[in-house]
């Protein structure tokens, strides 16, 4: 009997929760490594902040964007970074290449959900934690209308989901194209770096690329612009609609590409 949507969502949420709890317990077996992971995520978060601090110390920064506005962008990109650990392209490529995906096909849950949740959530958790602190600190030093807060949160979450599905699509596409895809993680890291700065500095072509092709701007620039009142609130509907549309496109493309999966058992 086909499960209801609510039931499937509950099962999916339960799977994510158990996967992450398990990965935390595994990670805490090595306590020193656990502590160093927290330190690593902290250093990874602090270096871009140190960069923009020095930039605004030696210059006037980027015209039209204050230090705290840029800090908000950095925090949002750090929040989006958590998806790279879930939808790790190199890991997805390895899972597909080495045949581990066969076991996901026999489970009652969606194979793509299994692909995204079977990962080490520890890094994601701590990156998410640091990023929320940075976003909160930046917002505390910025003035904005409280009416923009709800659209901001919705577009951030929507943008993160869109970027996660894009990242998963990249991993699955790399399976079809490359024998080894360690460079894909690096590609994601570079795209995230581009998302830390206002879209206008990349020109029209850059804006199109980071909005539609590699949609990090949906998770950082557009939500920040909504919150800060740099674009009108009516743009919220266009941005959210784009996030939903692109998410559907990347999900459908991922499912289509997975049809070309060759089982390791022949």
């Amino acid at each position, binding site marked *: 009997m086909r499960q209801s949507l609510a039931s499937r969502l509950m099962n999916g949420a339960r799977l994510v929760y158990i996967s992450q709890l398990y990965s935390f317990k595994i990670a805490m077996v090595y306590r020193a490594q656990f502590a*160093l992971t927290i330190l690593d995520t902290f*250093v990874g978060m602090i270096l871009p902040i140190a960069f923009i601090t020095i930039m605004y110390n030696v210059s006037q920064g980027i015209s039209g964007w204050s230090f705290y506005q840029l800090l908000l962008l950095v925090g949002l990109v750090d929040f989006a970074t958590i998806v790279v650990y879930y939808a790790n392209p190199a890991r997805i490529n390895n899972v597909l290449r080495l045949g581990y995906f066969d076991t996901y096909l026999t489970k009652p849950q969606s194979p793509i959900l299994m692909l995204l949740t079977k990962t080490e959530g520890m890094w994601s958790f701590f990156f998410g934690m640091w990023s929320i602190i940075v976003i909160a600190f930046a917002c505390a030093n910025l003035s904005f209308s409280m009416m923009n807060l709800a659209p901001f949160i919705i577009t951030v979450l929507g943008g993160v989901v869109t970027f996660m599905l894009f990242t998963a699509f990249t991993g699955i596409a790399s399976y079809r194209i490359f024998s080894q895809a360690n460079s894909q993680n690096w590609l994601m890291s570079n795209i995230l770096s581009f998302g830390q700065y206002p879209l206008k500095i990349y020109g029209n072509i850059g804006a199109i690329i980071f909005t539609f092709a590699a949609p990090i701007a949906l998770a950082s620039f557009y939500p920040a612009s909504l919150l800060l009142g740099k674009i009108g609130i009516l743009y919220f509907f266009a941005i959210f609609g784009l996030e939903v549309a692109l998410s559907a496109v990347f999900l459908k493309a991922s499912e289509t590409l997975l049809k070309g999966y060759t089982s390791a058992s022949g």
Partner: protein
Amino acid sequence: MFASLEKYYGLFRIRAKGITVYKGDFVVTLLLRVLFPVLMIFVWTAVYVTTGTTKIAGFSLLGIYAYFLITASLAPFRSDIDDMIGSDVLTGAIAVFLVRPITYLLDSIITDLSTVVVGFFTLTVPILALAVLFVPLNASLLLFGLFGVEAIAAYLISMLLEIMVGLLAVYFTSYAGMAAVINRCMSFFGGGLLPLSFFPSQISTVLSYLPFQFLYYVPAATLSGSISVQSSLFSLAIAAIWIVGLFVAAKFAWRAAKKHINAVGV
């Protein structure tokens, strides 16, 4: 003696061929190396042009372009020997090398060198050619010569530091987090993300006593003409002292680590 050199040359050739086995991934990795300087060009163009700035800490806009292209060309000179050593210690593969008629560290250095040589021809030369043609980088043969010597010094310093980082795996069950933190800091304090002259003067002064400046800042500042030939020669002398000191430290670290290595059969 020649037979001994021949076996190392044979190893070097095998390792160099192994780097290009996955051609698609190799080409994508090369292209990705260029993305960070491209990002910095966009960011600093926005800072200089939109705020009407002509010079920041002695760097003009073209000087900044040259700086980031040159630091990107130095990427192959960052040693990955810590990953190799750490992986060999954790998997126990190091035990095999301890009973072979080949020095383990020398074998690792040769493997690492093969990456440097391949990277020099596929990355350093093309990026420097881009810099000369498009920035344009007007450097004399003397400056290119100095840059070449400083790049070799950068590799030696990086390799010796990374050997000690890699040997941490002997003492810590999982050293990856610590290695990641150290490597991020080396890049940042070595001028990989920003010229060291952009840092506040107190921090700049402290960094001038550390070896990290030779990884990126000194070679890039020499070739871009940001520091004088006399300063470059003085820096080379300091680098030589650091190389001798780090060589002694690495030798002691290896001797101490050998006593603590635990592997099957050792």
